[in-house]
């Protein structure tokens, strides 16, 4: 079996920043999707990280998630049910953190065009030149069987995604 990756679309945020990055009209011709992000946002509070949310098809209910998290000095887990988005999996660097650094996140979306509920897995880290940077592994579920044709990511504190943040959507095909 051969696996091919195709960059479907990519966005780099401009100088004014943005509230969300939306991928629309996602073709249903791939086996899986992978969204790779490098993000920096305004934040709330004296922490160097923040969390993003992601919705599929504009759906704002029926999400649940579970996470493992570590920050170099401690580790833990947490979960959400009844959420309005794939929540607290995609991490972002806050603007009060180390200048010019961005988070790194892989979101894997298997069988996105199928008729099963839509599970995703997320491998995410934020970057910080100091003690305390977070790594998160997450499993998320959207209890909705519609094929995913659009994705939207946004900061959960309703803050701005900053310049030079990037998001690239890949289509993965097994042949």
């Amino acid at each position, binding site marked *: 079996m051969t696996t091919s990756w195709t960059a*479907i*679309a*990519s*966005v780099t*945020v*401009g100088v*004014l*920043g*943005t*509230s*969300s*990055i*939306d*991928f*629309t*009209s*996602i*073709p249903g011709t791939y086996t899986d999707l992978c969204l790779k992000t490098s993000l920096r946002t*305004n934040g*709330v509070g004296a922490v160097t990280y923040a*969390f993003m*949310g992601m919705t599929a098809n504009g759906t*704002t209910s029926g999400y649940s998630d579970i996470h493992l998290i570590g920050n170099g000095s401690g580790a833990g887990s*947490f979960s*959400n049910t009844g959420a*309005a*988005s794939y*929540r607290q999996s995609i991490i972002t660097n806050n603007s009060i953190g180390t200048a010019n650094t961005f988070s790194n996140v892989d979101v894997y979306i298997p069988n996105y065009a199928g008729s099963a509920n839509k599970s995703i897995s997320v491998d995410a880290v934020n970057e910080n030149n100091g003690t305390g940077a977070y790594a998160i592994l997450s499993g998320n579920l959207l209890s909705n069987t519609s094929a995913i044709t659009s994705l*939207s990511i*946004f900061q*959960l*504190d*309703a*803050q*701005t995604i*900053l310049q030079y943040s990037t998001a690239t*959507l890949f289509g993965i095909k097994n042949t």
Partner: protein
Amino acid sequence: MAILDKLLRRNTMSEVATAIEVNCATGEVTERPLTAAEITQREADAVAYAAKKAEEDAKAASDAVAKDALLTKLGITADEAKLLLA
């Protein structure tokens, strides 16, 4: 709405909340203002998330107090408790 006001006041990079939208079929990238529905949802998400964070912070503070009280009751330090559990 005080929490929301606080959140939105810090959103100073752009006067109007916008979305960058990329059409994967055509490759066209557009920047557009959020719709009224999107703004409402964004505000609701922020309020819900702030409430959840406040709940988690309160639980963490409560757990820390309970932990200290238990250590005091047992007459041992946190390091000694770790040894017991190792």
